């Protein structure tokens, strides 16, 4: 009996997940919003996107994705179409058109609108049952979320079980709450950010210290002091990381020099001649490093970029001490 319950549990969890996945009743993008999205000014577009995201309806996803991929087109300034390779669908009614019309106008989306589109898509995907999708979504939302998305994030926080995603949700929520009218909420948000402590959080906290003319952007002094404390914490953490990086570079450069010196010393010790051609051996080593580095860059670019993160000098091979001559 106990075993069967254990087996049932994941299934039950799945069921709960599926239930929370059911879209809100508001549904169907209205013709008005879609037209605003396609033909409005940028401000209208962003407003329409916020409405669509807040509706939290997965049916809006194709529309948003079409906009993100430049597949949203306008016919005669009135009808908005989602165009794929071989057909066109009305974005409001979902009716399929007999053929792709020839005189379609593009929907122009600039960086700001595209950012809002990405955020809206990510907000909708926060409710996805797939962990990877949710993780990607919250990573996008981290820099793009707007205050209107707070309810969405709070709802996602309640159902989230994955620790990593939950952490990201909390920091995202905290960064949005920095603008909250309630002082204690702001202070709590700062504390959360200081605990997460990345450089982006530092930027947000720095913004609180800025002055707008003579007055601070952040009116409460208590909040400013808290922000300064948090900045100090983050700074010291960043500095530790930097020292570690420097130490690593020092050791790695030192070990290369050590190898060269050892080579020279051993040849001299064994044969009693100074090997003037020792440079060749170092050259072989340098070339091998270069080739391996390029191979990694070509076949596993992710590993390469993360390795450049931890070491302050990414062009290591180019800065070997003897290459200066």
């Amino acid at each position: 009996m106990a075993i069967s319950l254990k087996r049932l549990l994941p299934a039950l969890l799945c069921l709960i997940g599926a239930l929370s996945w059911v879209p809100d009743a508001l549904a169907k993008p209205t013709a008005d919003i879609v037209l605003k999205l396609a033909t409005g000014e940028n401000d209208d577009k962003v407003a329409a996107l916020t409405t669509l995201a807040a509706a939290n309806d997965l049916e809006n996803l194709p529309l948003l994705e079409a906009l993100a991929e430049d597949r949203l087109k306008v016919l005669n300034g009135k009808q908005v179409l989602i165009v794929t390779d071989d057909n066109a669908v009305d974005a409001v009614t979902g009716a399929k058109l007999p053929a792709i019309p020839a005189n379609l106008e593009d929907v122009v989306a600039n960086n700001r609108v595209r950012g809002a589109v990405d955020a809206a898509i990510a907000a909708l995907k926060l409710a996805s049952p797939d962990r990877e999708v949710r993780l990607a979504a919250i990573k996008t939302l981290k820099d793009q979320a707007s205050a209107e998305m707070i309810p969405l994030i709070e709802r996602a926080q309640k159902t989230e079980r994955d620790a990593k995603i939950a952490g990201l949700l909390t920091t995202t929520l905290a960064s949005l709450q920095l603008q909250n009218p309630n002082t204690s909420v702001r202070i709590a948000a700062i504390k959360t950010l200081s605990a997460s402590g990345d450089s982006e959080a530092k930027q947000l906290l720095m913004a609180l210290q800025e002055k707008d003319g003579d007055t601070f952007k952040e009116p409460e002094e208590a909040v400013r002091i808290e922000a300064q404390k948090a900045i100090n914490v983050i700074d010291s953490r960043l500095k530790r990381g930097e020292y570690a990086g420097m130490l690593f570079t020092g050791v790695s450069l030192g070990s290369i020099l050590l190898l060269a010196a050892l080579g020279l010393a051993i040849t001299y010790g064994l044969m009693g001649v100074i090997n003037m051609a020792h440079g060749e051996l170092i050259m072989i080593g340098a070339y091998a490093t270069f080739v391996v580095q390029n191979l990694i860059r070509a076949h596993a670019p992710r590993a390469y970029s993360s390795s450049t993160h931890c070491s302050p000098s990414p062009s290591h091979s180019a800065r070997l001490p003897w290459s200066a001559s």
Partner: protein
Amino acid sequence: MQSRRSFIKVSAMTAALAVAGLASFGARAEDTIKVGVLHSLSGTMAISETVLKDTVLMAIDEINAKGGVLGKKLEPVVVDPASNWPLFAEKARQLISKDKVAVTFGCWTSVSRKSVLPVFEELNGLLFYPVQYEGEELSKNVFYTGAAPNQQAIPAVEYLMSKDGGTAKRFVLLGTDYVYPRTTNKILRAFLKSKGVAEADIMEEYTPFGHSDYQSIIAKIKKFSSEGKKTAVISTINGDSNVPFYKELGNQGLKAKDVPVVAFSVGEEELRGVDTKPLVGHLAAWNYFMSLKNPANAEFTKKWAAYAKAKGIAGHKDKPLTNDPMEATYIGIHMWAQAVAKAKSTETDKVIAAMAGQTFTAPGGFTSTMDAKNHHLHKPVFIGEIKADGQFNVVWKTPGPVQAKPWSPFIEGNDKKKDEPEKK
């Protein structure tokens, strides 16, 4: 006997042919108007300039097909100054004194223009300069068909500072080390200062011509942008350095949504051969984009595609691209032809007088007008974002053509300068 007679016959015929040939050659020499083309076909600027030579040749073919100018055909004289600035002056002198060209179309970099300027002034030649530049110059002998700073640089920075451009507060001024980027950045610095941007929020960097290692510079920009406040990069990098610059930008994942890069010398042609997918959203400011939709542009791009295919122009025969300096060249040569027809002469002074107020329906979608006084065109300004296919998406434009201000009001003392060339 037979052979002797035939010999006389043959030689007589040959002589007649030779005379006819000579006569026709002599007649041709008088019946054509020579047009100089002074663009680098090799060296660091070849990536940008080669196609301008072909644009001049296309426009000449077009004018000749309609019967030429003043009943004479145009004859191009193409020289290659090879991205070598002193050689530009030498070649310009050769074009004017030896080849006796009526007009020259040429130069891209301001340093090459500065190099040929004394030659054109001394020999009273006529130069049409088709590229956006830094202003601070007005010569009687030059017509500037590209943009002045107020027709490109200033609107672009205003856009970056606007809500739609991302309200940038910190700026990186990155350029190739010569007169155009240095002067433009001087103007931009003064402009930013007038908008309340602090010195500490401006970073200025220069690289030599042909520079190809942007790894450390982009790492520096990344660091600068992470120090708080929204950062934007204003690039005045010229020539083939743009390819490694944009490649590195893609490699290091500097996204347009975080740190937008707006370029003043990068168009459709420079992005050929760059993977533009990671670059989507980075910007360029010009007075023309290939993606503009209007009848004049449709005709222009169609003509260019057909010409490139017929002549087998490398790259363009498979993937024809047009860009702003090509449009400016095209406007320039047509306006010159109109002015010559109006002046009924190719004499420099008469053509200069006839140029004032010339109009042309430009592929940019507006009627471009040559200013009555200051030798610059009235042009519309467009700001485009790079799309995944290497074309530009116009995200901002002026309602109509803008009058050029070659003397930027952001440089001290310019308010006293006259908006027309000094007469000599």
